[in-house]
């Protein structure tokens, strides 16, 4: 009888008629070790057989921030709302790369894992989730660097962070991570059939960065169409909230945050819907 219960417990029903929305959180939870292993593997493999190893996590944003400081700060002479330029670009870069990595890494979920997906079943969503997790770990490492620089400028008295707002950073990460995941899996689902999208992603994300107040503060742009675009952009509000917390300068707008949250929810739902449809038969088309 116990045996029978065990089998009943693992009853799987496969039908040609697919359920539209089939998010099996219980199953993903059962495979949580796999999520962690995927995340771990991502790090292990990126830095295997490199001399500097994990130091690259620091070097990359460091160099990018220096380039930004030079290019946008010194050459273009953009304002940073009085925040020390290097700190401004370093923190902006940290939050943007978290979002963009969540998106771009997930955009190739199906195509780059087809070998594995084609051989064995496991909840496919474990891969996108682990991708977002590893972007989050990267973000935390970068935040360590941001903190170091922040402490330096705090001592010099050049910044005044809003420490209570730091409690909202997890919320920012949740929104941006979910948005990146949702968009990423929508793109990856579509690329199983139409490969054009994968080419567009890299270009699109770069473009998106310039449409987001990353290399400049939102206060820099006056009125008109550009401001509207910035406001519509669902990444703007979380990024500004993040900056408000870390740098003490930023725009906190509840309506815009609500729009951003709504957008994320919709994108995530559509993403899971499309992903569910595609994951069942994508092996036949990829």
């Amino acid at each position, binding site marked *: 009888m116990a045996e029978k219960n065990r089998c009943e417990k693992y009853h799987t029903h496969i039908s*040609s008629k697919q359920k539209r929305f089939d998010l099996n959180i219980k199953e993903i939870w059962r495979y949580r070790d796999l999520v962690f292993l995927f995340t771990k593997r991502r790090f292990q493999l990126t830095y295997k057989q490199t001399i500097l190893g994990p130091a690259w996590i620091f070097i990359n944003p460091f160099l990018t921030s220096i380039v930004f400081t030079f290019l946008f700060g010194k050459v273009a002479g953009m304002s940073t709302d009085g925040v020390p330029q290097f700190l401004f670009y370093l923190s902006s870069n940290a939050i943007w790369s978290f979002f963009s990595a969540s998106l771009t890494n997930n955009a190739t979920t199906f195509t780059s894992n087809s070998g594995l997906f084609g051989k064995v079943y*496991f909840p496919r969503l474990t891969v996108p989730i682990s991708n977002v997790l590893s972007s989050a770990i990267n973000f935390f490492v970068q935040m360590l660097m941001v903190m170091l620089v922040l402490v330096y400028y705090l001592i010099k008295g050049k910044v005044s962070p809003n420490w209570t707002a730091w409690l909202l950073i997890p919320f920012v990460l949740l929104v941006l991570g979910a948005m990146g995941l949702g968009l990423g899996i929508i793109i990856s689902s579509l690329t199983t059939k139409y490969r054009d999208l994968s080419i567009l992603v890299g270009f699109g994300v770069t473009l998106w960065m310039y449409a987001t107040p990353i290399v400049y503060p939102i206060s820099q742009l006056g009125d008109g169409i550009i401001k509207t675009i910035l406001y519509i952009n669902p990444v703007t509000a979380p990024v500004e909230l993040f900056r408000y917390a870390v740098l003490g300068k930023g725009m906190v707008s509840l309506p815009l945050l609500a729009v951003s949250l709504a957008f994320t929810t919709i994108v995530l739902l559509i993403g899971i819907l499309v992903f569910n449809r595609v994951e069942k038969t994508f092996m036949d*088309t990829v």
Partner: protein
Amino acid sequence: MDNKNNEIAVKVSNVKKMYRLGQIGGGTLQADLQSWWARLRHKEDPNTKIDDNSRLYGQTFMALNGIDLTIYKGEAVGIIGRNGAGKSTLLKLLSRVTAPTDGEIDIYGRIASMLEVGTGFNREMTGRENVYMNGAILGMTRSEISAKMDKIIEFSEIGEFIDTPVKRYSSGMYVKLAFSVAAHLDAEIMIMDEVLAVGDVVFQKKCLDKMREAANRDGRTVLYVSHNMNTIRSLCERCIVLDKGKIVFDGEVDKAIETYLGGREEFSPFCDLTKIERPKTVALKNRDVDFLSIQVLNRTENRVEQGEPFRFLIRMFVHKKPENAMLRFIIYYRDGTVAGASFSDKTFVCIPDNELEITAELPTKNLAPGVYRVDMVAFSSDAFGNRRLLDRVDSAFSFDVVKKEDDTLLWNHAKWGNAQFDDTVITMAQVPSASESAEDVQTL
């Protein structure tokens, strides 16, 4: 059939799987949008093909065309069929790699699929790391894997190499480790597709034993696909034959193998050999001799009693006169194992551009009862012993050797081979007296 108990492990009902033929390119976007728009308005999809239930229509191909199957708990089921019959597609559906186009599948229990051993192995990571990874992919938790780690390492015979990156492993070690992980899963249903094609013989046997143990002792269900009839025979008690996407046989293993191999048997006493395609070797491009036909002489069917010679007439056409022409008959048992070969006792004389008729007598004294097929070869050899192929017809004819009527022994080809040697002569060294033999009976 005895199903041990009637608990269902897998139930497949009317499953179909359709594949699109040709390239799937951007051109499908327009058709997809068209179909989607039509569906949205509840109109007929302009891109539907008419389903006439045949295997191929339009641009699609039915890899599985209506499969109904029930597998009970604890059964070891073999799945055989030619390439493209749908075996792997069926396993892919069961292991949920892809979804069926039509029909339903119910699976009671967890599935461990070993569709391809070593899936998810990463070359840069060590054996141990890969075991964790592979185990997690197959649905084990970290603690479950840790608990089984020692057993896995022991079974895989990897030993101290477990902490070395797998890129330094030999291919055999790689396979052994991968199989060990899959074999130690706590799954109720094990699916295996040709996993034993690699690895050494000793390890293959170990794996088969492990799977047999899983089925018999632990009551797990095993689904096994292979082209190796011997492993099917030794592991499975039930066998399914797939052909062109349909189940053509479901039942006893021996009968299934017979059905699968039987499709090729030619039992007519007359065979036209001109139409049979020759093996594609250079030597047979311009043949000096052409086999034309073969005609059985002493029987109306291709059936002979064991010991009675199988007599037939070979007709051939000689284009160019070969030196020392001889015949060779390679005899295969129906499952494809070679039983032996027989040569013509002398060379045959030919005249160029003429038809030639030869009567042949194939002795069947040493062939165990069963159905055999014969590859017929004509060759010539020069003074130095170099052989040259004249013509070769594979599966030129088949014949059935039946046992003598008074013999009640059933020949077991799987265990005893295909040759029955002359009876071993035994003589009693000491003839027991009547009283002694009476005692023997009592003690027994």
